């Protein structure tokens, strides 16, 4: 097991390097520059800007310097747009925000989605099942860019209960709406997956055996059915968790939370090379790590899997 984990972590290094190099190439291939403005920049000023950011160097030197900076000093370089901040500052400010609402969204999605799915499976073909399926399909088809304005209209404009945006250091009033908007579709997916797999497990032979032995229903479910039923859910949770803690463009733009999610789009549009690279690497590393975590969890839960 330890050996397997080490192997996976070692494989992650070339994967990240390939990610860095290919993003770098794509970024430079796009037309435009972070310094293009409508008014035009005097050539001397432009030359200075480029020198300041190392853009006057040949491509291979730029990329080499960047990789060395990241690897040796964990330095993701300056932001090309926010002139008084560097990428580490921006991520350092935004990531805790994203992590907070992402973590709460994850909890809500897992607890609500999981219980909804399992409950529906246990009460298969009853009104409870239909209600749960109805809710989860409804939540699934409602994208967060639709849900977010509806939430603000309802809770801010009409009811006046919650602020329509902002973060204010993560006070609870400011966290609720982003968490609802972000968790809903994940919750729906978790509900559907857990319902389907629970149904499958409940009809399997060993559950029938357990029930035939006369075990109480509660014991059958918690002892025998729950663990295998959760396997497909767990494989979904890895990427879902990364998806939530790296935030969402929609959440950050609609709720002005100040998280890092909006940089995904904004940095690309502004040609903010530094931020674009930093965010891509962060997302890549987190994805690799949580996929590994899921695989390890799998081995722990499912005795059939051994690495």
């Amino acid at each position, binding site marked *: 097991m330890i050996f397997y984990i080490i192997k996976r972590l070692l494989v992650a290094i070339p994967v990240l390097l390939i990610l860095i190099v290919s993003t770098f190439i794509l970024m430079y291939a*796009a*037309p*435009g*520059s*972070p*310094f*293009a*403005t*409508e*008014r*035009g*920049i*005097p*050539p*001397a*000023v432009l*030359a*200075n*800007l480029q020198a*300041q950011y190392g853009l006057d160097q040949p491509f291979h030197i730029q990329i080499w310097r960047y990789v060395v900076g990241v690897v040796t000093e964990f330095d993701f370089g300056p932001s090309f*747009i*926010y*002139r*008084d*901040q560097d990428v580490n500052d*921006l991520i350092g*400010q*935004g990531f805790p925000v994203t992590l907070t609402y992402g973590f709460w969204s994850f909890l809500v999605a897992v607890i609500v989605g999981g219980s909804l799915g399992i409950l529906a499976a246990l009460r298969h073909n009853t009104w409870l099942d239909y209600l749960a399926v109805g809710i989860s399909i409804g939540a699934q088809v409602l994208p967060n860019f639709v849900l*977010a*304005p509806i939430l*603000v*209209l309802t809770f*801010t*404009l009409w009811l*006046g209960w919650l*602020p*329509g*945006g*902002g*973060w204010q250091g993560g006070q609870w009033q400011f966290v609720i709406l982003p968490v609802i908007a972000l968790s809903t579709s994940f919750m729906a997916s978790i509900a559907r997956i857990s319902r389907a797999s629970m149904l499958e497990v409940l009809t399997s032979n060993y559950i029938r055996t357990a029930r035939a032995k006369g075990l109480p229903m509660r014991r059958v479910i918690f002892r025998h059915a729950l663990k295998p039923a959760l396997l497909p859910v767990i494989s979904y949770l890895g990427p879902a968790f990364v998806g939530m803690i790296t935030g969402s463009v929609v959440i*950050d*733009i*609609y*709720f*002005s*939370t*100040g*998280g890092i999610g*909006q940089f995904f789009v904004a940095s690309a*549009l*502004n*040609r903010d090379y530094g931020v674009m690279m930093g965010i891509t690497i962060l997302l890549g590393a987190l994805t690799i790590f949580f996929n590994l975590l899921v695989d390890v969890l799998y081995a722990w839960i499912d005795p059939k899997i051994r690495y």
Partner: protein
Amino acid sequence: MTKHRILATSTLVSLALCQPLWAADTHPVTGEPLAADQTFQYRLLDQFPSIDPQLIEETVGGHLARQLFEGLLTQNADGTLRPGVAEEWSSEDNQTWTFKLREDARWSNGDPVTAQDFVFAWRRAADPATASEYAWYVELSQITNAAAAIAGEASTEELGVRAIDDRTLEVTLAQPLPYFPQMTVHYTFMPTHQPTVEAHGAAWTNPMNIVSNGAYKLDDMATNEFVRLVQNPEYWGAEDVIITEITGFVINDANQALTRFQAGEFDMMDDLPAGSYPRLEEETPDVAHSVPRLCSYYYTVNQSESGHEALQDPRVRTALSYMINREVITDQVLKAGQAPAFSFTHWATADFELPAIDYSLWSQQERMEKAVALMEEAGYGPDNPIELNLIYNTSENHKQIATVVSQMWRPLGVTTVLNNFEWQSYLEIRGNQNFDIARSAWCGDYNEASTFLDLLTSNNANNDGKYVSEEVDRLMAESVTMSDPQPVYTQVEQILAEDMAILPIYHYTQNFVLDPTIKNWPKENVENNWYVKDIYRVAPE
């Protein structure tokens, strides 16, 4: 908290001692009852990349700079000049300008604001090492040696600005410029505090480091979330400032911002959602406002070799312009009070006399008939159709206008291919003349017609259509030294209309919503420069 309480108590006591209590709750000049809460909140369209006056390059940061810093001169509610740090200003020949600084101007740390602070800031703006994206503005102001300093060919110490003493600033220009004082209003020319900049480098604008000289100072900010300013007690005019605190919320999405405005979360927002203005105006006329804004919307016609050859023929350009029914665009597409444009210079530009351009007086029917005839004369038409590549940057309005215009051109046998690019790509494509027609807009940098007309001189870097007219070049060069250049500007507009150098479409308005309790908003200022120190909140009725 204790400190605040003590302050509040002592204020109350002193007020009770020296004047009737009610007096504190009314406006000292108008006598209107003031609200107890004198804070002002507004929406920021986007996170500002910088609030360093010499590095700012966009409007969000510009609005903040006007609260945080004070330049030599500022503007009254109608956009006319008023003293800022400078009490008096004069010039005998419009070439050497002397500014007399007020004695009581202070930085937020208590240091006096001196002429040297301006010299430092202006040199800094021109210094290639600062890499200011607004360095061109220093060059535009004609300060001696500006161009050479920006190009790195001369030291910034040779820049034509010097401190004669602490309170006297002398600016020497390469050529006379009667509107130079107007240009000093701009944020690029605001002073910066040398010891702070030198001590903290790029981080000098952080809330814990920044030293500023405006009516407000930076209190706190979080990237992409908010910025908060509080009153600067060191400001020379602090006694007259009524609003005590300003908060700006970064809200990218216009619809979301409008909902939050309607929920009462803040007092002002501009950049309203596309198409929302007519409804807002109808439902809440005391909240929705439309005022002229010093920007013109037009189509650039590529007259260089890389453009369609037909476009080099002024008759074709004229025909295209005649076919555009501007009323349809302003009244049916935009619907927010914009004015149809037949000239490049915005109609509301100070002192500018809008010329009587022939075709602006005709009916659309007449224009269309003339257009068809002109096209035919030039050898084009449905029998000899042309295909034009029209580019625009991503925006719902630009797309609608382009679609409408392409339909209007159809009777001339012109097929239009619409090409949408996001901003950075669009700038590159337009700057390299890879288009036939390009959606363009220009906003005045100062309130004088030359801010528009200079753009169409042949060696202007932003003359993307590569329009060349020796006459225009000559007239604009001559206008600089004239005491009253307005007739020349009118004449230039006439030439532009004859040559159809560009296709003017409309003159902008600024549409915004403002809480009705906020008073004295400068609606007459066509540059939309507002100073929170001038506004106040009245008690709700």
